[in-house]
């Protein structure tokens, strides 16, 4: 077992990427993720790899496009407004089927918004963000340890499916310090990157990294191919945690990231008052863990509550998963306001009717 070290979330992201074989990092400073870039600028040259501060998030994501096309593992990181700027490049990366890892340490929006933790980029991450029919695999860690594990998994998933993967944490997760262990990871069987454009080097036909298909028939074929890939990801890569969901429940919370940890504390508080609440914690926001709802559907008396640090975004996927079979409630704070366990518990008591 590897040694546990105390690390700030943002720095742990950097180290996890390095240990996953990330060859290039292209960044741009933005609060609250700047420590990722700072860590990479210290470490990458020491291990003979590439750190480069781009002139903008736009340039950084296009450098990612260039590097990913050559077949190396590459990462960029940013926070909400910066991810908006990267959206163009992410669409091209998805269109050209390039693997890469994108970190989003989310802060409150819209616009310049604030610099405090939020989850208000859920729509942007899971429903598109950029133009066109594409999907991002989105991992939502709830602890620094899980962030380390998921960043490493993200590189494998990206390579396996030739697709961009986002690891999305809120500002809290980036800034907090927790003990982490960098585990020895078994080598994954991954497809060879025969598509990489890194120079012919004896290859007969040139490789082209491209997302342009001028003939409608060809673009539709390409889209169908992408959709088939997304279907496969939906079948294979869904991740979630069920917490306290074994018995009959008064309500089931759906929450992700650090907020899910706050909700666990709320669940413990409510238990003392005789209210039994379960938790579905999506670990992949896309593909959304719809199957988790089937496991608890018959056990929840009052349905579900989506608890978010946003104004009601994930609740739409909760409603789609529940599909009218049970009530769906919502509780959200925004702008960098982080609900306390007591606030979550109070909202739940309002729904289930106080102590039993």
């Amino acid at each position: 077992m590897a040694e546990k070290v105390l690390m700030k979330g943002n720095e742990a992201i950097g180290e996890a990427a390095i240990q996953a074989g990330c060859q290039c990092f292209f960044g741009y400073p933005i609060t609250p993720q700047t420590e990722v870039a700072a860590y990479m600028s210290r470490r990458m040259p020491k291990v003979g790899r590439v750190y480069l501060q781009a002139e903008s998030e736009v340039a950084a994501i296009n450098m990612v496009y260039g590097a990913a096309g050559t077949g190396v593992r590459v990462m960029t990181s940013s926070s909400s407004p910066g991810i908006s700027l990267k959206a163009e490049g992410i669409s091209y990366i998805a269109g050209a089927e390039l693997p890469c890892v994108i970190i989003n340490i989310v802060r409150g929006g819209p616009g310049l918004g604030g610099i405090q933790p939020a989850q208000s980029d859920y729509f942007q991450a899971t429903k598109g963000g950029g133009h066109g029919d594409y999907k991002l695999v989105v991992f939502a860690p709830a602890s620094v340890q899980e962030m380390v594990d998921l960043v490493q998994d993200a590189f494998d998933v990206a390579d396996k499916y030739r697709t961009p993967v986002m690891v999305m944490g809120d500002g809290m997760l980036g800034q907090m310090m927790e003990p982490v262990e960098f585990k020895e990871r078994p080598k994954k069987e991954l497809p060879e990157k025969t598509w990489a454009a890194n120079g012919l080097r004896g290859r007969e036909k040139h490789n082209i990294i491209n997302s342009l298909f001028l003939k409608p028939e060809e673009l539709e074929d390409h889209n169908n191919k992408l959709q088939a890939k997304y279907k496969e990801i939906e079948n294979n890569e869904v991740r979630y945690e069920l917490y306290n969901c074994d018995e009959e429940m008064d309500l089931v919370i759906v929450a992700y990231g650090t907020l899910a940890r706050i909700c666990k504390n709320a669940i413990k508080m409510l238990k003392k008052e005789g209210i039994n609440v379960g938790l579905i914690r999506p670990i992949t926001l896309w593909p959304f863990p719809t199957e988790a709802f089937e496991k608890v559907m018959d056990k929840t008396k009052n349905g579900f509550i989506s608890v978010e640090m946003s104004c009601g975004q994930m609740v739409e996927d909760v409603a789609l998963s529940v599909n009218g079979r049970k009530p769906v409630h919502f509780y959200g704070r925004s702008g960098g306001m982080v609900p306390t366990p007591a606030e979550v518990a109070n909202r739940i008591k309002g729904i289930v009717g106080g102590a039993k």
Partner: protein
Amino acid sequence: MAVVFERPKALLDVPTHYCPGCTHGVIHRLVAEVIDELGILDKTIGVAPVGCSVLAYDYFTCDMYEAAHGRAPAVATGIKRSVPDSVVFTYQGDGDLAAIGTAEIIHAAARGEKITTIFVNNAIYGMTGGQMAPTTLPGQVTETSPYGRDVNTAGHPIRVSEMISTLDGAVYVERVSVDSVPNIIKAKKAIKKAFEIQLKGLGFSFVEVLSICPTNWGLSPNESIKWLRDNMIPYYPLGVKKDATTGEVK
């Protein structure tokens, strides 16, 4: 019988989509001849822009990328940093490079990225059908400057080569033209030098090529050549703007 003229190995044997009289074909050929002559086809990676030469990736036989509008220098940076022994070039038009991609080209040059940019300047947006470009001359009529470019409202054309030559990371900057055989020969020499500078790892190299657009200028190819000579060359003077290998700065 000795072969005295043939298609460069760096170009595919396919028809291009360029309009009759367009000089993109000549410029493609010059780049391809240089790749052949330097024997670097195996390690060259090209980046096509958005604009008339968007499909350049279908014409060159080396590995190719198609970049987002204006982002070719950033894409090329990602490629070169990942595969340092490769030879990376971007091929960009004036809308792509001098408007939407200004930040990317300036910073790639400032960083001294070891890449080569071929900048094709025809003073107009060609692919979208002839709109005003950052390089459109004062008074020039385009679809979006129907009364002629009025510098009071639309601002002034950008002399990109002169701007790039002020940056320390740029090692070699030259403006050439493909309006005549002697100038085509000079253009090839400049492109070759630009690639050689990259091969030596000296820094960023940049060749601006004045080019014609008969279709969107509304002129015949011959009239277009004359228009380029009479209007573009006076505003965009030809020659080496900077050569750090000799210490020359103009």
